[in-house]
């Protein structure tokens, strides 16, 4: 029984971790597909029409597969797709290394070198800006853009790990699981919205719609499950311990020094192993 619960925990952690990283990777590429195409071109492996078509299609595939994993829908098939992509990336990097090319892998480029480019809803921007002013952040020399990026990543990390630490042996409402799915769905919608840059009134209307949807979802869940389903102790523990660790990992992946050669291959293999585990050890009722 204990073995089964550990496996269930590992399954949740792998599913959410790999899914989240792939949604992040896709969001970065969708923000600047031309740059991603340039990155692909550096490898010298793809030419002609396949280059622009592949550069446009790959982020979409990453996004759909990552979301499937996060939402737990067709997770084994999604893990198979992600394994295939990772094998492709590892092969491409190995081929580049064999040609003595030192390339940035172009895998995670959510922020580039500018943290102010990090996608955040306008109301989050305003709330953090207000807190920054009130707390005297300008006088302390703290960078507001960096603070905003950290706050959002830490919040996402806390939400993610609150879910994975839910005891899987206890049948209970999947409150946090569904809440995280909603948060990430809203965030992804926002990233896509920013990436596509539609007309101002469309952006404004969609922002209000997303905010109202989030509040309505939260209110409905609280009404259905009650305040007892919010486990503040676990939330706080994760916020203090796992949140910063997860943030550090994401920060290094997204904005740290470029991973070249063996570093990229090691990172891809460390994502490939859990993805393959999901393919072969995923739940039996999932395709």
């Amino acid at each position, binding site marked *: 029984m204990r073995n089964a619960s550990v*496996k269930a925990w590992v399954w949740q952690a792998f599913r959410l971790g790999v899914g989240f990283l792939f949604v992040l990777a896709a969001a970065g590429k969708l923000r600047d597909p031309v740059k991603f195409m340039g990155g692909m071109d550096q490898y010298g492996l793809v030419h002609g029409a396949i280059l622009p*078509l592949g550069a*446009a299609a790959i982020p979409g595939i990453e996004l759909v597969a990552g979301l499937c994993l996060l939402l737990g829908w067709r997770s084994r098939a999604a893990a198979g797709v992600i394994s295939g992509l990772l094998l492709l990336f590892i092969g491409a990097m190995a081929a580049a290394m064999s040609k003595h090319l030192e390339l940035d892998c172009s895998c995670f480029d959510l922020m580039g070198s500018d943290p102010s480019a990090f996608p955040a809803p306008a109301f989050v921007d305003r709330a953090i800006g207000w807190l920054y002013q009130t707390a005297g952040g300008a006088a302390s020399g703290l960078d507001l853009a960096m603070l905003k990026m950290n706050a959002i990543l830490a919040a996402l990390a806390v939400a993610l790990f609150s879910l994975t630490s839910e005891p*899987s042996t206890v*049948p209970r409402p999947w409150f946090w699981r569904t809440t995280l799915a909603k948060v990430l769905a809203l965030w992804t919608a926002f990233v*896509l919205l920013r*990436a596509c840059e539609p007309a101002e009134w469309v952006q404004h209307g969609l922002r209000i719609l997303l905010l109202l949807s989030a509040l309505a979802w939260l209110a409905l869940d609280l009404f259905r499950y009650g305040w007892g389903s919010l486990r503040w102790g676990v939330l706080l523990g994760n916020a203090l311990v796992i949140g910063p660790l997860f943030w550090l990992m994401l920060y290094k992946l997204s904005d740290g020094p470029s991973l070249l050669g063996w570093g990229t291959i090691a990172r891809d293999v460390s994502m490939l192993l859990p993805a393959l585990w999901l393919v072969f*050890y995923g739940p039996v009722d999932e*395709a």
Partner: protein
Amino acid sequence: MTPTIECRRPGLRSVAWAAAIVLLGAALGLGLNHVSSVGINMTIALGLDEPAQPAAGAQP
């Protein structure tokens, strides 16, 4: 509910769903690129903006 977990080879159904995810993702990626103002300009990238070269010896 606790998910039941055991090792098994992915079946044909998983492969079919994987193919569906790839197709859906590719369509989404190309669609988003098409509506995005920062997307890749496929007309230029695929060389569709260049006028067709007249065949050798063809009359104008």
